[in-house]
């Protein structure tokens, strides 16, 4: 199962549409990190609307992916966390997910764009390139 990662300029969009097995999740993490490096992505939006179960493993994958993306210089926003998933996560333990969240891809993209605009590299490099 390969999860598609779409490119929109220097932003990556990905929507997880199925219940992921552990192997799928690791594969996705790997693909995404490589893609970030390849295009020098400035931002990533991951949509998890379809994830009905986020257990501590999946939470870790999401957190780790975000951490890796940050190390590679990209802003990360997660969108579409289901209400019951959010409730379950906070009942299991606080801070299982430490990434900024928003409602849908649309808003995720807006937030990412706003953040990228504040960044020096986007202004300088894009402007001169």
């Amino acid at each position, binding site marked *: 199962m390969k999860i598609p990662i779409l490119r929109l300029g220097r932003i990556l969009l990905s929507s997880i549409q199925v219940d992921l097995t*552990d192997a799928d999740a690791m594969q996705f993490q790997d693909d995404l990190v490589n893609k970030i490096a390849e295009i020098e992505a400035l931002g990533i939006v991951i949509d998890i609307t379809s994830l009905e179960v986020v*257990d501590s493993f999946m*939470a870790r994958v999401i957190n780790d992916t975000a951490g890796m993306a940050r190390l590679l210089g990209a802003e990360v926003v997660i969108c579409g966390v289901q209400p019951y998933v959010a409730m379950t996560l906070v009942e299991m333990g606080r801070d*299982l997910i430490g990434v900024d969240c928003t409602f849908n891809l649309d808003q995720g993209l807006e937030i990412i764009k706003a953040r990228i605009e504040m960044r020096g590299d986007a202004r300088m490099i894009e402007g001169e390139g």
Partner: protein
Amino acid sequence: MTTQPTNSSERVPILDASDIVRARGVARQVAGRIGFGLADQTRLATAVSELARNVVQYGEDGFCEIVDASDHNEMRLGILVEDHGSGIDNIDKAMKDGYTTGGGLGAGLPGTRRLMDEFVIESEPGLTRISIALVRKRS
């Protein structure tokens, strides 16, 4: 005047990581059939996911049994996860937040306990049994 509960159970073998998704799918389905709300279905599916992953990571082989033990007063879904791995050395330690030996967030077991109404764990080399249950009064 006791109505005999119409108990039913389903057993899912857990041998590799793909069974985790199957087990939690069955748990969600059974919970929905009994009448648990979406929030409780998610709690149950997540708990099964945690426990089933434990089996895959440490237990070699095992199974997950999902039992509908509801009666006319309450909805009750019981889940037994059993594996035949090396067992948990120190249960107290395994139940503490942040303790992990297998690269997780260390929230698996204590997190599951917080999600459920009942949580019993027994472990010896060769056999680990964790039974959990979610109970809701019928309104």
